[in-house]
């Protein structure tokens, strides 16, 4: 099974698969189901491909995240281990020295457990990561290069969730993410046919053939389903 076959309808958006070891940013405003989209995509794929991955949550508690997935009809997979840093943030935020180093350690420890079958990574979210970076010490762009480079070296296919808040974060001000990521998937919410619908648009995906148009997707009792190409006015 390909990654793009893991969500119903996604293989209509993509003609060829997302390359392994790619770093994909999934961005969108609040309520566009970014976490659900990434979790659903990875958990379905890992179950079918006999692989393992880690989903790092910096904002939501693990229990809360799982309850959210459950409410969206997204199946929970033990192959996608949720690493909950939110509690750590709550307890020690002001004492954090090197959050990227911690994520690297986390990845290394999972790799030791799962071996070569560990190949997928998700971070929820980049905004929360920025809030934990020591911007006095090293510029954010340099830190992000280091982080993305580490993910590539470990050959992890990675999905990085970025919430658009309307307020520019230091990283967005620098605008480094689009350049250093291999792919960008935008999730949005628009009025369509008299009602609000969620859609996704692949803005960029290196070495993959894909549609540039927005596609409407829905949260169904069995998870995320991509329905049709949107025809907005």
């Amino acid at each position, binding site marked *: 099974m390909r990654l793009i076959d893991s969500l119903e309808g996604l293989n209509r958006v993509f003609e060829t698969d997302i390359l392994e070891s790619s770093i994909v940013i999934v961005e969108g405003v609040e309520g566009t189901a970014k976490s659900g989209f990434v979790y659903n995509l990875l958990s379905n794929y890992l179950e079918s491909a006999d692989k393992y991955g880690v989903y790092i949550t910096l904002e939501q508690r693990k229990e809360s995240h799982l309850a959210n997935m459950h409410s969206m009809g997204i199946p929970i997979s033990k192959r996608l281990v949720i690493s909950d840093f939110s509690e750590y943030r709550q307890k*020690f935020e002001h004492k954090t020295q090197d959050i990227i180093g911690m994520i690297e*350690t986390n990845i290394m420890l999972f790799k030791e457990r799962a071996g070569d079958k560990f190949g997928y990574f998700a971070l929820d979210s980049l905004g929360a990561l920025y809030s934990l970076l020591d911007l006095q010490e090293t510029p954010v762009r340099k830190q992000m290069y280091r982080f993305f480079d580490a993910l590539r070296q470990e050959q992890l296919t990675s999905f990085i969730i970025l919430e658009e808040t309307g307020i520019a974060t230091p990283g967005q001000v620098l605008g480094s993410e689009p350049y250093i990521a291999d792919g960008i998937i935008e999730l949005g919410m628009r009025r369509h046919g008299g009602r609000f619908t969620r859609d996704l648009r692949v803005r960029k995906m290196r070495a993959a053939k894909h549609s540039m148009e927005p596609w409407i997707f829905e949260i169904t009792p069995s998870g995320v389903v991509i329905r049709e190409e949107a025809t907005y006015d």
Partner: protein
Amino acid sequence: MMNKEIHRYDLTYIPDAPYIVAGLYFFKKSDIQDLWRKGTIVLTDTELWLPEEDQWNILPLTAIEMFGRTLPTSSLRDVHDTTGYTSVLVVDYKKQSSFGTHEVISTILFAGENVTIMEMRVQLARLLGLSRYAELNLTEDDRKLLYLLSEGIKKKAILVMVFGGDKEKLRKSFNNLKKAELCTKSADLTSKGRDFIARLGRMIEGELGEDAIAPLKGLDPGDGNEGREAVNTVSWSSGKSYMVGRVEAELLWQHIPFPVVADVKLHDMGTQLRITTTYGATIRIKSTSPPVLMSLFDLTQAAREKIPYASEPTKHIMNLLALGVRNVKIISDILKITESNVKKELDQMFSEGVVNRKYELIAGAGDLDETD
């Protein structure tokens, strides 16, 4: 991926106990068993990673307030009863309270094989360092004294000896430690003092020489070592001539030519006394009992400086008692103090609880305390 330092330790642990002030007794014994987890603890140069089901609990090293704190015996017994281990490492750390914005202290209790606990302790000490105590400006002597106190070496006579006979230096260091709240007036370490020592790791032991610590630790009569005979070796050399032999402690004074002593020094952390005479002979006295040498050092130094023993009768009678010389007439002959005055001093020592009726030194007397 990265160049991180990684250490792993297989341990049993309680990951998040309320700050254990007096031990585990506030838990029901049957519950303690359930609190323990087993797993491989990962220590990096910035965090401790504690396995928790399929993920990890992470503790930044910067959150650690104290480590190496001792637990009461009753708690150690609980640890042993519930884990089978006697080696324990206590780590106290600060975290944000779940309610409000204040910080609370929590505790991780590690139990395991002694060698594993020791290894982790050493690495933690190295990684945590002493930076948080930099403002205390402790001298090498202060650190040395704190270390000796942490090892239970509290006898003033022994400590003076380690300080090369310099009582003023010892007093100054003791005052510094009390002022820094690292030890109490009765020379017991505070929690802060324990943390300092834990962070110091084996550094100071290396400086002192591990061989020196063991004999020092065995000197407290309260340890049940009072019946153990000291082994003393005396060697005499001059030019090509050389003699060596074993001598009982109470006869050692007979091998020191007091009137012709040119120099006297303690060497090797107080385990060797070296005397040179005005005629160029060298006398080396080695002993498994440093107080024996300290007493000889005091007596010999007074003789070299021509200070009459009668000017400090109590001190020198104590020196002879430490050597095992308890006969009033012999003490009188050596110190050139009348027998009646020797008797008077001994009676005074008896009334102060320093010696018993047989003029043996009493355990516990002479510890470093608030009078120092």
